[in-house]
């Protein structure tokens, strides 16, 4: 038995820290908690929790089956708590699905033509590549928390006032 216990959070079990100011405003630190964001968002609402110029980190509540997404650049997804499955399809003509100059993920109305690439089962701490030129979909049998490294785009949701300490 280890002398130490590593503390991770989960959508259904987390503790939150916070900002104590001496001579500052808490708003300057854009402090939020990913599990709280996932717990209080709609399934697959891709909420931006961090932004650095055009780049963002999104948090999504994985719950049931997501829409299909595609993107003109790589993205990465990290499972932060419970099991999430990722399904990947190589698009036959990715440029006709997503403008190759565009940034951020696009939600697709239907799955375009392509070949099945495979699937990945993610558990806590696992990171998956969501490769350029592919379409992807998530599936989770119970609510889980996903963190996505991407660029600000049409599916990115900004609701800073409701997620950040003020």
């Amino acid at each position, binding site marked *: 038995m280890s002398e130490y216990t590593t*503390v991770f959070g989960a959508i259904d079990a987390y503790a939150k820290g916070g900002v*104590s100011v001496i001579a500052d405003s808490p708003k300057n630190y854009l402090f939020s908690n990913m599990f709280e964001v996932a717990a209080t968002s709609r399934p697959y609402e891709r909420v931006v929790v*961090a932004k650095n110029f055009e780049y963002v980190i999104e948090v999504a509540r994985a719950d049931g089956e997501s829409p299909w997404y595609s993107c003109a650049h*790589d993205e990465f997804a*990290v499972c932060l708590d419970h099991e999430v499955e990722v399904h990947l399809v*190589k698009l036959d003509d990715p440029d006709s699905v997503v403008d190759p100059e565009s940034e951020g993920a696009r939600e697709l109305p239907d799955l375009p033509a392509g070949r099945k*690439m495979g699937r990945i089962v993610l558990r806590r701490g*696992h990171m998956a*590549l969501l490769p350029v030129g592919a379409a992807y979909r998530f599936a989770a049998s119970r609510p889980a928390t996903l963190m996505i490294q991407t660029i600000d785009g049409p599916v990115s949701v900004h609701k800073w006032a409701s997620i950040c300490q003020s």
Partner: protein
Amino acid sequence: MAMSEDVAPTRPANPRGLPLQSGFAVEPADNRTGYRTFRAGSFGFRRDGYFAHITWPNGRHQLAVDVFLRALMRDVAWGFFYGTVNFDTVFGTTNYYGEVEMFAGATNESFIKAGTAFIERFKSDELMRIFKEMIGDWTNQGYDPFAAPMETGAPWGSKNGDNDSAVGRKRVTAKRMVGLPGDTPVRTDASGYPVNRMFADVTQDTPEVHAEPGFEHEVSAFNLFAYLSRSDVTWNPSVCSVVKESLFCPTSEEFILPVEHGNDRPEWFVQLSDEIIWTTKDRDTGAFRAQVVCKAGDVCVMPADVRHQGFSDKRSMLLVWENGSPKIPALIREGKAPNVPVTF
């Protein structure tokens, strides 16, 4: 995330209009302590059993040598990093990406008010050469300035061997994602990365990857938490995934961030496990601004006008998120880089 000391996308900014210093010297080993002394411009560096001594015209300062070596190690490993690296409240460096300022008191309100702050400017590669020689000579056998204090030997006393393999570690930088073919490999016992004692309970399972034939190179995943549980260094972010210039730079943290980092741009922290307490101070004066407690799942940004220092008792996993865009130094020079990335 480390900066390359060679990065100079355009002519470096020089807001103080300082001339470049070119005088460097490495003196023979001292007969009593066995350590070499160093000179860069008008700054002199000497170590003895317990302390690093820094001198400049009409001024002197001393730091406990463990504090100095841990800070120097990060400044070297990070290529002077982004913005200002305060070794303590007096001494540090500010990166202008190709050139660097070394200062005594320039970010300390007392020195500034008294008009006694001293600053000189160097070509980054030339000062880096001296810093690398210094960390090599002043680090004794058995002491690793990258390691947590409970995991390494003591730095004290006279010269006693060296630890070049520790101070010469290469920073890990994945090109796309850890574990992809041809990219940075995952860490294993066999590759010399055992699980850290404080992460013995971290699950070492691997994602289930079911790739169709022909897609094995792109259907890929790895266990990031297991990867971090095997980090052999502290407070030393390494790149694990890349979206253009967006760099996920996770790291494992124990004890104290060895520098007060005054970034010149906002810097995001995503707490992946356990807890870190951050103290923030005014970047330019050192006046206290806030305390930020980050627990697992918490996200926060360090504004560009603060310096920050983290404290982590239990070894923790932290995702440092950086934007490595070469456009940013120019935006900083033009005052177009915001202190806080979002207002609401």
